[in-house]
């Protein structure tokens, strides 16, 4: 299985080609083909879990070929403990997303299937690329399908949201391109080897100082916009609210993780000095994001917007964990990425289900749902509690580890962040109370139907993992630990090397 990663990455693209060949009126066949492609991709990606060697910190399933030899660009794929879970999360969520769109996407299924499948290929490509050029290609190429999904199948203000999303992310990532080039030439001038290969570049000790700081800022800006961290988050509520359910789930579940993954994969090992120097500032921004996101959530009248802002808060935790540079913080951050993908993904799915029935998302339009749709309400409660971080469910594990890491480094940040969990309980449970408890206040709500078999099929797999990670996280954390340890020691030894070089100068 030497080509496993290539297969996983390009299977969805091949599926998109097949869909392109189907006649437009064959809508049921299109749906089935799209679902089949994502299911096969998920099945093919499973060996990544079963054959993954959890004791090794190295890249596994590596594929390497020259692509543009004169520039040192290679087709280099591989996964380690940092990326493998994110790849699996992507392939896991995609079939659910397609299934959830079965009836909610009403027009242009053919185009929808093609863009979703291309998006999947792009997202997996981002997580498995070990070459900066290749990574950048996937990173940028993925923008366009997401832009189309928001812009074509979104809500009333979709065009504005779609254009804002693209321009915001494009501006950030283009500056990263300049930084990639700067790094490439600096590495080439210093070592004589001109390459975009990440493992090679990561071994190089970049001299500390202004150049490294600027490169760090350019990378960090691109990732901070993607995460999104305060104050670069303003595109997110627009994009989430206007996007169709499928778009929101993918956006929250996978796309936002690309920002945090980027910090972990690129910023920390490539610019260790700058990362350490500016870690306190990242703490400040994370904590502001955690608290501000939570406070804004509390006053949202729209459930979807509430969930969107909760992402700002939850991903603040992730960034906080990553920049503690402690094993607990990093593992917690990684697990929390997966958790957020599951919990927030499920929240968006359920908001989409209720929207499909009532065509409203305003909290005030609901109330007393427990009496009408008990199964929906029960699942919704579990998902809300998992997002809050109730012990026994997945959210608790990640947040606890992150806070454990943060407490060793910066107590104030840890204490402030902890209060973010309390606020999360406030806004989510208060929202839940207004939606599901009390009397049925709107006549329209009396006729709601409960979860259909298709909706159960979408939600059950997510619930399974919500409980699994909550009860026995070791299944997943064990895979990440060697890579995390090696990353931390790499960052610290490189940072020491630069400091030593500065001392002797």
């Amino acid at each position, binding site marked *: 299985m030497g080509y496993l990663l290539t297969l996983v990455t390009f299977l969805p693209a091949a599926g998109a080609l097949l869909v392109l060949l189907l006649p437009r009126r064959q809508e049921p066949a299109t749906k089935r083909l799209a679902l089949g492609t994502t299911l096969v991709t998920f099945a093919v990606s499973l060996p990544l879990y079963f054959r993954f060697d959890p004791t090794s910190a190295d890249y596994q399933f590596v594929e390497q070929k020259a692509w543009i030899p004169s520039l040192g660009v290679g087709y280099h794929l591989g996964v380690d403990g940092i990326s493998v879970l994110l790849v699996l999360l992507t392939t896991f969520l995609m079939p659910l997303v397609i299934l959830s769109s079965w009836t909610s996407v009403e027009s242009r299924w053919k185009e929808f299937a093609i863009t979703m499948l291309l998006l999947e290929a792009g997202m997996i490509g981002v997580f498995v690329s070990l070459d900066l050029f290749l990574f950048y*290609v996937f990173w940028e190429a993925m923008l*366009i399908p997401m832009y189309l999904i928001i812009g074509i199948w979104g809500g009333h203000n979709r*065009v504005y949201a779609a254009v804002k999303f693209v321009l915001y992310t494009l501006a950030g990532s283009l500056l990263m391109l300049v930084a990639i080039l700067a790094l490439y030439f600096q590495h080439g001038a210093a070592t004589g080897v001109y390459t975009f290969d990440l493992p090679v570049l990561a071994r190089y000790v970049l001299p500390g100082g202004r150049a490294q700081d600027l490169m760090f800022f350019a990378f960090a800006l691109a990732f901070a916009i993607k995460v999104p961290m305060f104050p670069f988050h303003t595109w997110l509520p627009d994009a989430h609210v206007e996007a169709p359910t499928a778009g929101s789930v993918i956006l929250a579940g996978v796309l936002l993780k690309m920002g945090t993954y980027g910090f972990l994969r690129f910023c920390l090992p490539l610019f260790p000095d700058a990362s350490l120097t500016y870690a306190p500032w990242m703490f400040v921004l994370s904590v502001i994001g955690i608290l501000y996101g939570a406070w804004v959530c509390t006053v949202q009248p729209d459930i979807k917007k509430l969930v969107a802002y909760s992402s700002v808060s939850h991903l603040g935790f992730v960034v906080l964990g990553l920049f503690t540079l402690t094993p607990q913080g990093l593992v917690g951050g990684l697990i929390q990425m997966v958790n957020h993908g599951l919990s927030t993904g499920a929240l968006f799915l359920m908001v989409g289900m209720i929207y499909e029935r009532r065509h409203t998302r305003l909290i005030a339009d609901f109330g007393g749902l427990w009496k009408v749709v008990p199964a929906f309400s029960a699942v919704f409660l579990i998902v809300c509690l998992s997002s809050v971080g109730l012990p026994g469910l997945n959210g608790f594990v990640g947040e606890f580890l992150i806070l454990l890491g943060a407490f060793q480094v910066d107590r104030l940040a840890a204490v402030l962040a902890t209060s973010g969990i309390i606020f999360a309980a406030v806004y989510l449970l208060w929202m839940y109370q207004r939606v599901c408890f009390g009397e049925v206040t709107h006549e329209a709500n009396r006729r709601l139907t409960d979860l259909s078999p298709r909706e159960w099929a979408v939600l059950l797999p997510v619930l399974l993992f919500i409980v699994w990670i909550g009860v026995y996280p070791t299944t997943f954390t064990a895979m990440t630990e060697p890579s995390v340890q090696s990353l931390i020691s790499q960052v610290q030894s490189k940072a020491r090397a630069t400091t030593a070089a500065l001392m002797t100068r």
Partner: protein
Amino acid sequence: MNPALVLPAVDLRPLLPLLVLAVTAGLVLLLDLVPPRERKDHLGFVSALGVVGTLIVTYWMTFSVGGGELRGFRGMVVLDPYALFFNIVIGYATGIVLLLSMDYIRRERQEAGEFYALVLFSALGMMLMASAGDLIMVFLGLETMSIALYVLTGFFRSRIEAGEASMKYFLIGAFASGFFLYGIALIFGATGSTNLDRIGNAVAAGAGRDPMLVIGFGLLLVGFGFKISSVPFHMWAPDAYEGAPTSVAALIATGSKAAAFAALLRVLLTAVRGAPLDWPFLVWGLSVLTMTVGNVVALAQQNLKRMLAYSSIAHVGYMLVGVVAGGSLGSGSVLFYLLAYTFTTAGAFGVLLLLERDGREAVQLADYGGLAARHPLAALALSIFLLSLIGIPPTAGFVGKFYLFAAAVKSGYVWLAVIGVLNSAVAAYYYLRLIVFMYMREPEGAPTVLAPSLSGALALVVALWGVVQLGVMPGPLFDLAQAAVVPLLR
């Protein structure tokens, strides 16, 4: 004894690609006189075949000449890898334009054999500029190209904009030629030669301090500035593009720009090099000004031909980044970008030209509302060209920009690269706006129809193939581009 009349041995090999074009053009003019008189399709077909022949000859010579060069007419004409690369660019541009024109000019009821001959003559001028080893030859090529283009711009005689466009283009072009000639005269005065190599040697020997030479180079730069339409010499471009037949606008945007860049780079690399002039600094300013003005003004355009005109101005700004960066990477990236840009822009104009609404060309933004629902393939093709213009991978436009900015960073012009990428982000807005209209709006009013055209479809396929191929596998052609400039840098 009468001295025998000795004819100097004339080596025609350096002119081979041009000769193929010239013969084809003559043939087209001849065939125009014989029946069938009412249909002219076969002339377009013959012209396209001639261009294919030129391309084949060019490819063949690329391999047979290798890294060497052929000189003819006492160094007036140089056929080196550099010229051959530009022949490829110009050949593709001309070929795509010819294929696009065939059904188009019949639809517009302006079919005439001269059209094809003029396109071929202008291509001849362009290729001559690319292989000129002497300023006089540059000028000859420039005029051959320009005069044919002036006529082509006004080819739709019945349209009032056509007359305006042609007149403006001609007057400003003549003005630019004046600058250019005066520059040549001053350089000749300072160095005693118009041959680029000899000027280069004289400059290296110390003539570079001569104010006459400095002014001469300055005037030359102004002349080139008009032809590549860099700010502040760009005013003619939007009007000319708007009034010209769309396929001719594509030719002006791609082929004529490539030719002007070919001559400009060769002059800078062989003649001006070594002069104690801070020309990279000057071009730095031109570059920033050009891309910024082009993009900002394009934001406000509702007419797509005008939008593409300003976008082409902005792209000149990007290419000047490579000129500033210099070296084999910088100059090579300009060559590569011109090829990528040719496929992209010719393709974008091509889709525009195939669409009609209410019996006129669909060039307003509003004509494109809901196009994806009616003509999914046309919308998809145009979207791919627009994504390439933005510079989204995996398209030719991305790789081209990547090389240009890489060269800038390598030569230490990091801020120029930063200004360039920020400009790309601004530009994304107006390209995406067209995609918004095609995919995210409902069609309103009279339907936009797609004119059936087999040759037009073929042209688009060629352009798409170029955009994708250069985007996915840029290595071989970039190596060719880089190898083409290396001999000039020695």
